[in-house]
């Protein structure tokens, strides 16, 4: 795992000291709220509907057990004993007090964490594949590239005040587990016909009030050209992106209005004009960063594990959990373990301080101390020996983290909604819970199969509803919440924006409508056909009819 160097340490520690002074000046009145607001936001501190909210960066979703344990301590010391995993793989705390935040930031800095790039019109915390370094599908571990981007973008003076926020995601597999096509820039590590490794650069994707799937800017960018090329892209955006209307300020609007070919010409012209190799990173530096992500000391094990297989036969609960929550590891004898933060009775993505400590213990005992957060608001233990899986499952049960619903209908992405967010127009958590409870029978969930429901409490789409197989948008009119439904969205490598079905539903109507939709799908699906594939085959009309059949 990446360890901060002296420069990183100095930046993080000096920022804590700086913010402590800023808070003191704000409390004394030496600076006004207008002056203080951008300073607190640059450290991840928002003022939400009921309280301050602290967003903690988790670069590319990678955490150590030590960091997770510290987050648990912070949840107890400064908050209400829990935290929340966001759709950008970050952590949020809903109830800190301003006067405590400098100490909170110091506790974060003690484990190389901070709130940089979690707010503001800068390059936000870079996200990546939670299976990085563990899946056989990848060309290479995408995290060294993500780390390179973190170092480049952190406090980048030219890009601190962009027209709007800027989100980058990196994957190194054909399977997209980071929704790269819904990012301002999506990067896929790829190889050309000569076998050289480089980057497929996608630009202009995004969700929010104008959902757009990104387009290819460069099909293959040589590895050493990454930073100069992104610098050129950001410069074009910084110069031509709209600043007169925040709703039209994202790069997706610029790319759409300019046209991808004209936009590409502008980027290439800017790139040509850059000082040659001005900020290009040498192969040695890439090697140095990559060395921090060297694989752990895997044992030489057979792929087949008798003890694991025996437990699959004798322990049904374990077999059901393993059937959904495990993914294939690149090293024989190991598994990738998905830990669900979607019990049917709690808010999606929430995790208590006790559970954070339990996950830290489990990571140390079974996964080389490594933890990942996912944009699906779950957790991954990336490197677990198959022979340890049953013991791990027992520990997960003790911690109430054993829901076996990864990728199923109750594995719902859900923003905090009106319960916490100042921007929301309706609640999303109770809707998520109502759906999860309606489909709480694990056997029924497995029978339905892969299903992605995503819920946003407003048009800003933090709950990714545009790319849900079933997307739900909470709105409010005359004091009454209602929920608009989209169908056919896809967050994978086959990314697609869902289509609105028609008039909205009340919460009660919505759960019944979704059940009708699911029942219809079960009736018409071909063998082993996923919901999204049935939808693509049959089109909107019959599903819409089922949805509104009451």
């Amino acid at each position, binding site marked *: 795992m990446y360890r901060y160097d002296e420069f990183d340490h100095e930046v993080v520690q000096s920022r804590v000291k700086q913010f402590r002074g800023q808070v003191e000046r*704000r*409390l*004394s*009145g030496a600076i*006004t*709220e*207008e002056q203080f607001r951008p300073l607190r936001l640059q450290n991840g501190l928002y*003022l939400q*509907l*009921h*309280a*301050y909210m602290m967003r903690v960066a988790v670069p590319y979703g990678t955490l150590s057990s030590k960091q997770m344990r510290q987050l648990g301590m912070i949840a*107890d010391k400064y908050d*209400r*004993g*829990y935290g929340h995993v966001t759709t950008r793989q970050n952590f949020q705390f*809903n*109830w*800190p*007090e*301003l*006067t405590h935040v400098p100490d909170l930031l110091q506790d974060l800095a003690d484990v190389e964490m901070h709130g940089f790039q979690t707010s503001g019109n800068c390059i936000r915390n870079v996200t990546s594949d939670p299976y990085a370094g563990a899946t056989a599908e990848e060309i290479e571990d995408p995290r060294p590239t993500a780390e390179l981007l973190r170092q480049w973008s952190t406090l980048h003076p030219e890009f601190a005040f962009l027209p709007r926020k800027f989100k980058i995601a990196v994957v190194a597999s054909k399977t997209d587990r980071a929704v790269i096509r819904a990012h301002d820039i999506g990067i896929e590590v790829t190889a050309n016909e000569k076998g050289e490794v480089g980057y497929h650069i996608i630009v202009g994707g995004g969700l929010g009030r104008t959902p757009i799937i990104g387009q290819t800017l460069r099909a293959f960018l040589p590895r050493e050209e990454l930073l100069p090329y992104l610098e050129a892209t950001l410069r074009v955006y910084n110069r031509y992106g709209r600043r007169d209307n925040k709703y039209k300020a994202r790069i997706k609007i610029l790319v759409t209005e300019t046209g991808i070919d004209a936009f590409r010409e502008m980027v290439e012209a800017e790139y040509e004009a850059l000082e040659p190799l001005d900020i290009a990173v040498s192969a040695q530096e890439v090697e140095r960063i990559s060395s921090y992500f060297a694989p752990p000391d895997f044992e030489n094990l057979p792929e087949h594990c008798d003890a694991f297989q025996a437990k699959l036969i004798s322990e049904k609960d374990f077999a059901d959990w393993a059937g959904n929550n495990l993914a294939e590891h690149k090293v024989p004898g190991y598994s990738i373990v998905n830990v669900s933060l979607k019990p049917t*009775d*709690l*808010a999606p993505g*929430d995790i*208590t*301080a006790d559970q954070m400590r339990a996950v830290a213990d489990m990571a140390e005992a079974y996964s080389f101390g490594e933890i990942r957060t996912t944009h699906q608001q779950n957790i991954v233990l990336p490197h677990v020996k198959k022979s340890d899986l049953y013991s791990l499952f027992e520990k997960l049960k003790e911690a109430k983290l054993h829901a076996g619903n990864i990728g199923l209908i109750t594995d719902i992405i859900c923003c905090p909604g*009106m*319960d*916490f967010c100042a921007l929301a*127009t309706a*609640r999303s*958590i*109770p809707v998520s*819970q109502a759906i999860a409870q309606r489909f709480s029978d694990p056997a029924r969930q497995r029978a339905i199969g892969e299903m992605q429901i995503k819920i946003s409490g407003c048009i800003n789409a933090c709950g990714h509803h545009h790319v849900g197989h079933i997307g739900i948008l909470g709105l*409010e009119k005359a*004091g*009454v*919440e209602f929920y608009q439904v989209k169908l056919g969205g896809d967050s994978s490598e086959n990314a697609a924006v869902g289509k609105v079905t028609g008039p909205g539903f009340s919460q009660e109507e919505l759960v019944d409508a979704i059940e009708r939709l699911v029942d219809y799908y079960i009736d018409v699906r071909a063998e082993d056909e996923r919901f999204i594939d049935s939808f693509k085959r049959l089109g909107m009309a019959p599903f819409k009819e089922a949805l509104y059949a009451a």
Partner: protein
Amino acid sequence: MSTAKHKGKGPQSLTANELRGGASVWLDANMEWSRDFGDAFKTEDENHIEKMRAKGDADANENLVVGVYFIDIEPDSGLPVRYREKFRVKGPSYDTAEELGLNAKKAK
């Protein structure tokens, strides 16, 4: 500086957030800030509203509260008119700490 400007119709209350803690507060009849909306002063009297505005400005300048603004109140129910403000009064309908009794555990 407060941005409080009374533009609404009917009864008004003044709300803000505590600067230090962030909690939502409402101005009561004694011109003190309360975390309980039940204490909120609700009035259509322009003289009272002017006093409330002055108090809001003063306390924002004194760095006690932040984001001061007036909200419209329904005459019959005494609740805020806007859905968002109703929600701010009630607090979250769901909080994991409440659900699992984590606050009680922390208090022990």
